[in-house]
Each structure stands twice: as structure tokens, then as C-alpha cells.
């Protein structure tokens, strides 16, 4: 392994390409932890946003007018406002209004950390899109299917869980795919509230080692890799869930 690192030191001396994230143990550790922070952020936000989408789409089909309107307003508000301002609003605005709690040492600290606020606001942002996506999927499920489920004695909730959702999920996978890729890219915004994810770490490293172009190219490649990985996983899921005769 030392020889490998030495080669990159030699590369720096010979060409000026300074990849500290490979040969410098401290930068390497920082970048790896930043990468995992991004991955964690992505996975948690994807799970939460899909949950918000499923629940929201169910509520949108509700018989109560005000429930439907509430969901509609939630979607409109989160879709048509900048995600960065949402994050600021949550973290700085609401965070300041919440009471502080004392930690084990008796020092007051905020109820939610910046990572938790980032997860919350990013999930709500992506969730608003997911509600729309799931709703369009649910609308594409033939009405006769729901009626057949009703005739078999399913309640609205159980028909939704066992009949409508599995079909709708398959129909809206491509759109969901798109939104998840978008979410992965949006996690960079957590940089603005100092969540130590990849962009934040990269900025720290290029401030120390002044290797902006190298880190930039690395970041772009890393995100292309991450997005490619997500697309691959979603493609696998799509193929695994395929039911002959259903879908496009």
C-alpha cells in the first residue's frame, strides 16, 4: 500500500497533480468519512421521502376535503420553493424557535443537530415530489382492480397496501428513479449548514492543500459514480419486481 501512496506523491512531484486524498492519511480519512456521510444522507432521505410519498398519496385519495387540501398545499409549498431556503428556514428559522435542551454536561444544545435538520428538510422536499409521483402511479392502476379488491371485502387501507400500491409502485418506478437521482444531487445542499458530507470535506481539503481543480474533478467523478450506482440499483429493483403483463 505504501508503494501505491508513494506513486501519487511521485505524481504530485512530476506533474503537479496533488491528490492528497490518496496519499495523505488525514485527508484520506476525512474524505472517506465525508463519502459515507453522503451515502448515509442519501439512504435515509430516500427511505423517508418514499415513506412520505406513500402516506401522502394515500391521504390525497382521502374522502375528507381538508386532508386532500392539506396534502396539496404541502406539495405546492415544497415543490415551488428553493430547497436551500427550505433548509435555512428549518435549520436557522425553526431551529432558533425550538427550545434548547441540556446535554449530559449541562451545556444547552439544540434539540435537532444540523444533520437531522438536513435529513428532515431534504426528505420533505423530495417527499413532496414523491407524493405526486405515487399519485400518478395510483391513478394509472385500473379502477376495476380496486373494485375487485373491494368486492373481495378489502377495506380502503388494505386494498391500498396489498393491491394498489404494489401495482402503482411498478408503474411509477421510472419517475421515482429520476427523483431519487435528483435527491442524491440535492444532498450537496447540506453543505450550506455545515453537514460534513463530500462537498464540505472537499472544500476543507482544497482550502488546506490548494488543489481546487483536482478536488473538483474528483467530486464530479464521485457524484457520477454515486448516481450511476443508484441508477444501477434501481434498475435491479425494477427488474426484480417486474410482473409479466403489468406495466409498460
Amino acid at each position, binding site marked *: 500500500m505504501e508503494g501505491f501512496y508513494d506513486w501519487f506523491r511521485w505524481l504530485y512531484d512530476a506533474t503537479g497533480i496533488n491528490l492528497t486524498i490518496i496519499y495523505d492519511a488525514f485527508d484520506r480519512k476525512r474524505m472517506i468519512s465525508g463519502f459515507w456521510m453522503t451515502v448515509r444522507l442519501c439512504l435515509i432521505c430516500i427511505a423517508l421521502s418514499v415513506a412520505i410519498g406513500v402516506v401522502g398519496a394515500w391521504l390525497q385519495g382521502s374522502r375528507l376535503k381538508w386532508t386532500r*387540501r392539506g396534502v396539496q398545499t404541502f406539495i405546492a*409549498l415544497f*415543490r415551488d420553493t*428553493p430547497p436551500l431556503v427550505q433548509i435555512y*428556514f428549518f435549520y436557522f*428559522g*425553526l431551529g432558533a424557535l425550538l427550545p434548547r435542551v441540556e446535554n449530559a454536561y449541562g451545556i444547552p444544545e439544540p434539540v435537532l443537530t444540523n444533520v437531522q435538520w438536513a435529513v428532515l428538510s431534504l426528505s420533505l422536499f423530495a417527499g413532496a415530489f414523491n407524493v405526486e409521483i405515487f399519485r400518478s402511479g395510483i391513478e394509472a392502476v385500473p379502477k376495476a382492480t380496486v373494485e375487485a379488491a373491494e368486492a373481495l371485502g378489502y377495506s380502503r387501507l388494505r386494498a391500498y397496501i396489498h393491491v394498489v400500491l404494489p401495482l402503482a409502485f411498478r408503474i411509477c418506478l421510472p419517475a421515482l428513479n429520476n427523483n431519487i*437521482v435528483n435527491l442524491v444531487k440535492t*444532498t450537496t445542499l447540506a453543505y450550506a449548514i455545515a453537514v460534513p458530507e463530500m*462537498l464540505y470535506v472537499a472544500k476543507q481539503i482544497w482550502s488546506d492543500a490548494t488543489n481546487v481543480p483536482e478536488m473538483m474533478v474528483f467530486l464530479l467523478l464521485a457524484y457520477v459514480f454515486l448516481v450511476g450506482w443508484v441508477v444501477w440499483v434501481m434498475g435491479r429493483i425494477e427488474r426484480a419486481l417486474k410482473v409479466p403483463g403489468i406495466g409498460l
Partner: protein
Amino acid sequence: MKVLPVILRPAPAPWRAPVLDRRHGLFLALGLVLAVGAAEAQGAAAAHPSVLATLWRWTPLLMEGFVFNIAISLLAMAIGTVMGVLLGLGQVAPSAALRRVAWFLTQFFRNAPWLVLLFFAMFLLPFEVRVGGVTIPLPGWLKATIGFSLPVMANTAEIVRGAIQSIPFGQWEAAESLAFSRRRTLWMIILPQCVKRMLPPWMNLYSLVTMATVLASVVGVTEMLTLVSEVHAAEGGRAELLAPLYGYALICFFLYCYPIGRLTVHLERRFQVRI
């Protein structure tokens, strides 16, 4: 209408002006009142001026910032669209090498996060360029605009490619049989039909760009969000002012982007492809 989708096409819904419904106004007002009320309750003890008065006092400055955001978004959209159309046409070019290069550029800029591309533009573009003997300065906001136009370019290219490929291939053949050259087919037959299909996703993209312009504050360009935090500092940095101030910014963007979104949905329905 659900039963016989093939025979009976529902008439497109009549066009309603993309106004905010009363309920949206209600919810917005409720949110603002809650935020203001909470701030008011904390500020009342210290005898600060009311939050609404503060917001009102700074509105001219904040609006100036907001207009700047809109200007950046329009410029980025213009640059990105011109480059994107060229890139999109490159993706359907007869030359395989050109197609591959255009495809790669599109995918690269489409899959990179906006903020990373913005950093890319801010740090790697020079602060001035020399063309011949003339030195053209590149201020921060212009570099940010270029940074925004890169993803716009890639997304527009995808929209153009998709629209061109959605036109039935028979039209190309029919034009060829009428002795149209390739360029004339593209300009006189294919692209005019594409415009209709490209408009809704293109408008969607515009609203995305508008919402992305606030990212410029992260890399040090003075726009609305920067002004918001400056206003906050000028008002003594009271923590309870943050929620109303950022809420104010949210509402500005909402009022601008929501009608665009409604118009997009309407156009989408109206231009639905009938085969």
C-alpha cells in the same frame, strides 16, 4: 371517461389563470402569522419594533435581491438554452463521433450536482479574459450565471433530443421523398413540431433554475439570500427574526414559481400527444 379512453377523449380543461387558490393564500398567511407571532411573542418583552414592520421596512432591499435572482435565472436560461439546443441537435447528428461527444457532455453535466458545477465555475473560470487586446472582467455573478447555464444546457439538450425522437420517423422519410435536405427537414418540419412538446419541460426547467439561483449565495454572490442574512444582522441578529425572514424569501419564490408550475401542467395537458 375512464371506461372508454380510446374512443372518448376528454376535452382539455378550460384554461384558468394560474392564480393562487384561496386555500394557498390561507396556508401561507397562517404560516407567516405563526412565524411572526412566535417572533412577536419573544420580541415583545424587549420592546423591539414589530416583525411585520421590520419586514416591510426591508422589502425594497429584499425585492432588489429577488429581482437580481430573476435576472440571473433569465440570463442562465438564455445561455443554457442556446447551448443546449446545439448539444441536443448534436445528439441526433449524422456523425457518430459528434453524437458520442454530445451524449457524453449531456450526461456529464446532467448527473453532476448543481452546487458542484457552481463551485466548478466559480473557482476554475478566470476573473477576467483577454480577447485580442481587450480585457473582459468576469465578475462573480457572471461566473455563477455560467455555472447555472451548464446544467441548463444539459437538461435542454435532453429535452430537445427527446422531442426530436418523439416525432414519428415517417415524417423524415416523407420529407426526404419531397426532396427536402436534412437541414431543411429539421428546421421546417421537425423542430416546429418539437416546440410544442419542449415547452412544458423547458418551463419546468426554468422554475428549477430560478430556485437554484439562491445557491449563488453559498459561493459569495450577493443575492436575495445574502441580503436576508445581512438584514438579519442589521436588525441586531435576533434569532427569532430568522424564521420570518427566511419565510419571506420562501414566499417570494413561491409566488413566482407556483404560477409557472400551474401553467406548465396546463400546457402539458393541452399539448398531450395524440397518436
